[in-house]
Structure formats: C-alpha cells, structure tokens
C-alpha cells in the first residue's frame, strides 16, 4: 500500500461526508452512507493488513498543500499501517453496526455527515508525515468528533460535555503544537524526516515528553486529564461512543508513540518514570471510578481510562528498557502495549455497541432500571458476555494475552540498573494486578445488573433484540476477541515489524513454536498457550456435562426462587449497582474518593423510609480543575474592563504592541 492509496481513501470518505451533508434529510440516506463507509473502511483495513504482513517498504509523498515551504507530507510505515488497521477496523465495525442503528435516531442528519469526516480525520492523523498536517488532521478529528458529541444537544448534560470536551481538546492541541515547535527547533524543520535527523538536548527532550504526555494523554484520557472523557464519550450516539473510546484514544496513543519513540530520538531512562507512574495510576483510578458509576455508558468510558493506563504502562516499560539497551525486553513491552491497543479496540467497541443495543431496546442507560435482558436479548447478551470476559482479562480471551505479556515484561525489569525504576516497576505491577481484579469486579457488576436477574422496570421487561446489522457487527468483534485470545501468536508476529522499526528488535517468531504457544523472550522462561487452554476447558466442560447427563438424574423442575419466607419480593429488592459496589467503595473509597456514608434512620414509629446517602468526591476535578476554572474567571473579570474602551485606545493598544515587538526585534542579540 502506498501513501497515495491512503490519501485516496481519505478523499473518498470526505466525498461521502459531503454527500451525506447534501442528502441529510433523504430517506435511507444514512443507511447508504454507513454502508459506503463500511466498505471503504473494510478495504482500508485489508490494505493496511497486507502492508503490515507483507513488510512492504515505507512510502512517502509530498503534496504542495499546507505551509508553502514544507508541503504536506504523507507517509506509510509499519507503525502507520498497524494504526490504520486499528482505525479502519473500528470504523468498519461501527459503520456496520450503525446501518441499522441509525434508524432509531430522531435526527440522523445531525450525526451522519460527521462520521465519515471523523473517520477521514483519524486516518489522516495516522498518515500525516509532517507536523503541520498532523496538527491539522488532529484538530479536524477533534472538531468532527465534537460535532458528534453534540448530536443530541438537547439532552441534559450534553452541552456541558461538549463544552468541557472542546476546552480540553484545544488544550491538547496547544500542548502538541508546542511539542512540535520544540521538536522542530530553531531551524523550523516540520517534516518528520527532518525532525528525526537532529537530536534534542535532554532538557528539551524532557519538555517535549511532558507536552506530548499532556497533549496525547488528554486525548487518550490519562488521569488527571481524563475529565472530559467520561462526559463526552457517553453523550455521543453509541456507535460514535465506540469510535471515540475504541479508536480515537488509539489515535492519541499513536501520536504519543510517534513523538516519543520515533521523533524524539534515543530515550533517557527517566523518561519511563512519569509514563509508568501516570499509566499505573490511570489504570487503577479509571476502574475505581468505573465501579462507582451507575450509567452503563459512563462505566464503559471510565474503563477506557483504565485500559489506556495499561497501554501507557507498556509504553513506559518499553522506553525504560530501550534506554538501557535491553532491546528484546523493550520489544516485549511495546508488543504488549500494542496488542492491548488492538484488544481494547475490539472489546470496547463491542461493549459500547452492546450498550447502544440496550439503549435502543429499552431507552435506558441507568443500570438500576434494567435487568433480566438475557432472556429478552439473547444474542446481544451472549456477545456482551464475551466482551465482559475479554475486558476482565480472563483466559483464554484476548485481554488476558496482552496482560500476560505485560506481566512478563515487568518480570524482566529487575535487570534495569536505575533505582527509581527498580522501585517503581514492582509497584506498577501491583497496580496492574489490582486493576485487572477490579475490572473483573466491575464487569461482573455490569453484566449481572443489566443482563441477569429480573427486570427492574417496565422498560427492561419489554425489550426486543436489535436488528441484524448491529448483531453482525457485535458478533464479528466477539469472534475477533476469541481468535486473538486463542491465537495470540499470530497477532504478536503481525506486530513484529512495528517493534522492529521502533525499538530495533522484535519478539521471537511465535508462529514456529509448537502447538502455537507464545513465549515472551525464550521458551524456557515461560510460555502460554491460548489454544490449548481453550481446548482443555472446552473438553473438560463437555466431558463433565456428558458424564453428568449420562449418569446423573436428569429430572428437572422449575420452581419459584427461595424467598426466605417473604413471598412476592419486588424486583427492586435485587442488589442494585450501587449496592454491589459498596464493599469495594468501603475498601478503596475513603482513600481515593473521600467517600462518606450518612445513614438517615427514622425514629421508631415514623413511617418514612430509612435512607443512606453516599458522597463521593472527584479529587481530580476538585483539586485541579476547579481552582483553574476559578482563576480563569477571576482573570476574566479583571480583564473585563478592556471591553469598554474607546476605539482610539484600542488602536493605541495595537500600535504600542507593534512598536514593542519591533523594539524587541531590534534589541535581540
């Protein structure tokens, strides 16, 4: 695949967007648009995969667009091809899902044109080969996704979500702009090839790292820059939520990898420290936040923060290893991170689709109003279960495979010579293990409350299965989760060119190992075989089922559930989402959320119900954002006076600033 091909299909996507804009109100136009986008993305996916596997050479083109003295560079290398595959896979799945889903939208023309534009923007970010096109595409991606977030702008909370999102997105772009400015240096080389050619000094590299972490990290949702994410992702229509959570965060990860691993030059060991710490913190905090939410889509959005944390832990380890010259270990850590990028795109898209299906079927996102959907929506509930298992890192699914690789990378880290890393890495390992266990608790809660038990309200009682297109999209993602989990060796081999290009080494070829197991460094160290574990489980489960059915009693009777002597328990007596989270809130909440419980118990004889009130504090918001917002409004109030000056004074302000700048130029050495 050449860069021309990539550009061509970005243009086709844009054409589709224009078509959708023009035919917004026509009958069935949204189905046609999504169908076209699906085909385009699918072809793009195939092209990217072929490029990745065939090991095609890099290709670069320069167009006379953008800044005149640079032009617009577009290039395709292994890293680009991998992320193009992720973007187009997510895009294809989302469009397939949306062919049917969009019928349920009241005003499809509010979102339809922006989806192809959003896809085009994400493709363009990955294809960009110079800073200007990168930032342009990045901003284009942000703005089109902002328009999608605002699609349901009349609903409560959406306007605020959109506002917070656009402020944070602008902040992120600003940080990236400064990062590229520092990278380009005084010569102003904005093409990636030119940036790569010269070295940044350690101090400057530190600034660039911090800015990249702020810019890409805010888009990816690292704590404490995550605040917009759980507001904006759920506010959008569900297929767009899937795109934003499953794909756009990955584009942000791409931006980070491109800057830090590729453009910044050889890493310093301390660069791994902040990435590891922030990644580990995001992983645990993200899933703890998710555990406290009762809105289904918001739970999923917070869990994205957790997964992004895992990915950044892998990246931080890779940097630390690479800086110390342990290239195979760096390749292992990087592969773990990229594998998780892929996995998260699979299962988070799947879960958001499932949430969308629940939303269409019941009109509810609040978990405590759902329940018992496994009987009303059998297919959705089955594929959602696979998604839940995958995201909880249970073997033999894909989430476990990448987590396993990450643990193996951590186990290699005692050889790192620096004390800071020696101390931080085991702690981060504990955080990873904690976040995996919390994720399992979180998704038991989601699945148990939404799909199991009895329907809590009428909406859940009358739910109906969603249309075939949506089911097809979910089922194919679920199948991918299983395949990537059972045959992780294939994925690892597919990622080898990327690792080779970025850290100069690759993991051992996995496909040649007997029985398709995977081994991180050498087989004697450790190995894991998803296929065999899967086969063993399947065999022993069917063996047990066979023996039981053959030899045990087959009598079966349906009876009411045991009611402890209080008949006709209302469905509301089931455990609620908040109730399920209570033990974990008690254990971690006082520490992390300053949670406090207040029990309001009526006096004997009173007939009002007892109440329990729980207060949680979002410390990131209260300690960081609220003071900044206060400061901004304080300054704004002070500057307010400037609005009421005469035209002469405005002119003189302009004049004096001009003179001042000229003076500065004159006295500059």
């Amino acid at each position, binding site marked *: 695949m050449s860069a021309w091909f990539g550009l061509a299909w970005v243009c086709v996507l844009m054409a589709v967007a224009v078509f959708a804009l023009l035919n917004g109100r026509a009958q069935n136009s949204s189905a046609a648009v999504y169908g076209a986008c699906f085909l385009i993305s699918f072809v793009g996916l195939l092209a990217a995969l072929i490029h990745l596997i065939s090991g095609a050479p890099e290709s670069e083109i320069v167009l006379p667009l953008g800044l005149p003295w640079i032009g617009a560079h577009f290039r395709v290398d292994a890293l680009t091809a991998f992320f193009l595959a992720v973007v187009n896979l997510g895009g294809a799945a989302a469009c397939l899902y949306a062919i049917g889903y969009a019928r349920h939208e009241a005003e499809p023309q509010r979102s339809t044109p922006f989806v192809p534009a959003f896809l085009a923007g994400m493709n363009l970010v990955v294809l960009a080969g110079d800073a200007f096109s990168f930032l342009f595409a990045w901003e284009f991606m942000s703005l089109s996704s902002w328009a999608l977030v605002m699609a349901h702008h009349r609903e409560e909370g959406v306007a605020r979500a959109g506002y917070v999102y656009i402020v944070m997105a602008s902040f992120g772009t600003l940080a990236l702009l400064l990062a590229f400015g520092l990278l380009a240096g005084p010569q102003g080389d904005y093409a990636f090839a030119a940036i790569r050619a010269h070295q940044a000094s350690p101090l400057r590299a530190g600034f660039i790292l911090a800015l990249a972490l702020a810019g890409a990290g805010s888009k990816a949702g690292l704590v404490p820059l995550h605040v917009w994410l759980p507001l904006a992702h759920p506010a959008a229509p569900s297929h767009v939520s899937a795109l934003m959570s499953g794909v756009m965060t990955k584009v942000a990860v791409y931006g980070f990898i491109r800057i830090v691993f590729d453009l910044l030059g050889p890493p310093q060991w301390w660069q791994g420290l902040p990435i590891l710490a922030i990644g580990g913190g995001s992983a645990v905090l993200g899933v703890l936040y998710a555990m406290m939410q009762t809105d289904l889509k918001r739970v999923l959005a917070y869990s994205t923060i957790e997964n992004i944390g895992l990915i950044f832990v892998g990246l931080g380890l890779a940097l630390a290893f690479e800086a110390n010259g342990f290239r195979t270990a760096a390749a292992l850590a990087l592969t773990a991170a990229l594998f998780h990028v892929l996995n998260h795109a699979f299962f988070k898209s799947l879960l958001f689709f499932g949430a969308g299906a629940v939303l269409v079927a019941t009109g509810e996102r609040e978990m405590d109003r759902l329940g018992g959907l496994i009987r009303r929506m059998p297919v959705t509930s089955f594929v959602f279960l696979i998604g839940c298992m995958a995201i909880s890192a249970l073997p033999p699914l894909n989430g476990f495979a990448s987590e396993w690789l990450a643990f193996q990378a951590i186990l290699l880290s005692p050889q790192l010579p620096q004390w800071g890393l020696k101390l931080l890495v085991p702690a981060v390992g504990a955080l990873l293990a904690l976040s995996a266990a919390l994720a399992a608790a979180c998704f038991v809660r989601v699945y*148990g409350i939404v799909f199991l038990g009895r329907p809590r309200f009428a909406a859940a009682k009358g739910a109906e299965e969603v249309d075939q297109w949506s089911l097809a999209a979910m089922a194919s993602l679920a199948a991918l989760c299983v395949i990537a989990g059972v045959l992780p060796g294939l994925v690892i081999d597919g990622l080898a060119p990327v690792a080779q290009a970025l850290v100069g080494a690759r993991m051992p070829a996995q496909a040649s190992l007997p029985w398709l197991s995977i081994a991180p460094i050498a087989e004697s160290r450790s190995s894991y075989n998803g296929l065999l574990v899967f086969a063993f489980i399947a065999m022993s489960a069917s063996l047990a089922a066979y023996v039981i059915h053959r030899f045990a009693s087959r009598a079966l*009777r349906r009876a009411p559930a045991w009611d402890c002597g209080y008949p006709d328990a209302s469905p509301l*007596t089931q455990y609620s989402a908040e109730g399920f989270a209570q033990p974990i809130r008690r254990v971690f909440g006082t520490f992390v959320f300053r949670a406090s419980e207040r029990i309001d118990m009526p006096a004997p004889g009173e007939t009002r119900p007892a109440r329990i009130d729980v207060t949680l504090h979002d410390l990131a918001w209260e300690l960081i954002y609220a003071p900044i917002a206060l400061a901004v409004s304080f300054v704004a109030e002070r500057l307010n006076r400037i609005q009421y000056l005469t035209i002469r004074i405005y002119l003189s302000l302009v004049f004096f600033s001009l003179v001042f700048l000229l003076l500065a130029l004159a006295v500059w050495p």
Partner: protein
Amino acid sequence: MAVILDLVVQNAQMLLVLLLAPLLTGFVRKAKARLQRRRGPSLLQPYRDLLRLSRKETVLAEESSWLFRVIPYLIFAATWVAASLVPTFAAGLMFNWSADLIAIIALLGSARFFLALAGMDVGTSFGGLGSSREMMIATLAEPATIMIVFTLALLAGSTQLSQVAAFMLSPAVGLRVSLGLALVALVMVAIAENGRIPIDNPATHLELTMVHEAMLLEYSGRHLAVIELAASLKLLLYLSLIACVFLPWGQAQPGAGPAAQLAGVGAYIGKLAVGGLFLAWFETSIAKMRVFRVSDFLGAALMLGLLGTLLLFVSRSL
C-alpha cells in the same frame, strides 16, 4: 514411548486430583471435628454427598436463564484445568508449558467470574450479596497472588510452575526472606480464596455472614454436585500449589519409572494430609472476621507479597 508415558502421567494426574479432592475436604472436616472433640462424619462423606446430589431432581428457579445451567460446568472445567496443571506427584507434566502460574491464577479468576454471575442470575438479594462480597475479596486476593507469583518468578527466572519447583529443589535457593513472605501471603490468600475461616465459613448458612454459599443458594441437584466438586478441587489446588512450590521434595522427576511415580503419589498424599491438618488446626483456633475486616487481612497479604517482590527487585544487585 516417552510421549505415551508423559500422556499417561498427565492423565493420571488429572484423575488423581479429581478423585482426591472430595477426600481432602472430608479429611479437613474430620480433623476439625476431632479437634473440637466431636466425632465428625466419615472421611467418605463428601463422595456420598456428591452421589446423593447427582441422583436428586434439580430444581431451577423460574427466573434463571440458560447461563445459570451452563455455569456449573464452566466453573468445574476452569478449576479442573487449573488443578491439573499444578505438578502434584510428578514434575514436568506434559502440558505444563501450556499455562504458567499467571494463567492458573487467571483460570481461577474465570471460575470466580462465572460463579459471581451465577449468584446474580436469579435476582435474589442473597445472590447479589454473595457476588458483591466475593468480588471484593477477589480484588485484594488476586493482586496478592500475582505478587507472590512475581516473587517466585524473579527467583526462579520463570513463571512456569515446573521450573519454579525445579529451582526450589536446587541448592541455589538458600534461605530467603522473600520466600518466607511469599509463603505467609500464599497461605493467607489460600484461606481467603477457599472461603475458610476467618474469611468465610464453609459450614454456615447464617445469612449475614455467607459469601460463597450465598452465591450457590439457588443451585440444587447435579448442578450443586458439580460446583461442590469444583470447590473441593480448588482447595486441593491451593494445597498442591503450596506443596509444589515450598515442599517440592519427593516429586517424581520426568522420565522416572513407575516405582518413583508411586513414591511421588505417596509423598503427595502425605503433604496434603499435613496441609489439611494445619488448615483444620488453624480454623479451629481462630474466630471468623467481620466482612470489612477482610480487607485488612488480605491487604496484609498483598503488602507481604509486594514486600517480597520489592526485596527481590532491590537486592538483586547484591
């Protein structure tokens, strides 16, 4: 030929754990009863219970879904696979490389995931209570186990259980604080994971204190039999794990003849008996904790595991 022998050993091991598991449960019960100056049920009582349950009619709650009927088999399969991957009487099992310690822990995590879902399926408040508490315990126990695995893996240079056992037999081990910390932490985790006193009481059906039993409340007949067997397997698995890692002596080495294999079986049963006695003694001498003290208990296990890992990370340079 060697392949066939390996296969025989592997299958013998799978059968052995399955057959021994109820006996171990019965043995612990008996030992506990004797310590409490009761007579206690016969050693074979768990087998009889399983037979009785499997002959009975299964009563399903009206609201239960298909998942409820599938889950017992899934739990059993995941636990059994995990248990058969731990070397018991012979080291170097044939399929040992297919799953390492991390995968074994995660397989048990899968079993727990499904058990918690089963608790929520029928839609009674007990099930939810059990699931919610079980997951809280798991959020602390699982990272603690992973930390223990880290400690062992850093020492042995592998997360593969057979290699860990081989390392423990070699003279390179020496006396290490980290190993002691890992042992204490592993015992604490094993107690919590198997729902023994002081975390949970396997014999209780007192509503407010149940964890494990609350999730099973709606199961009956053959489903309950399968789950009970899985629970026995899990107890056996943890004792085997402790024996395999910390007392690897007496295991038959790969390629050993039938006599050595038999001696290995004898040694294994002896180790299980010691472990069972210790468990019975511990359970008898301690009182059950409040649910919210569990987090302190397991938090301590987690800290010990982390401390062990940290010591290894730091003192590797010495």
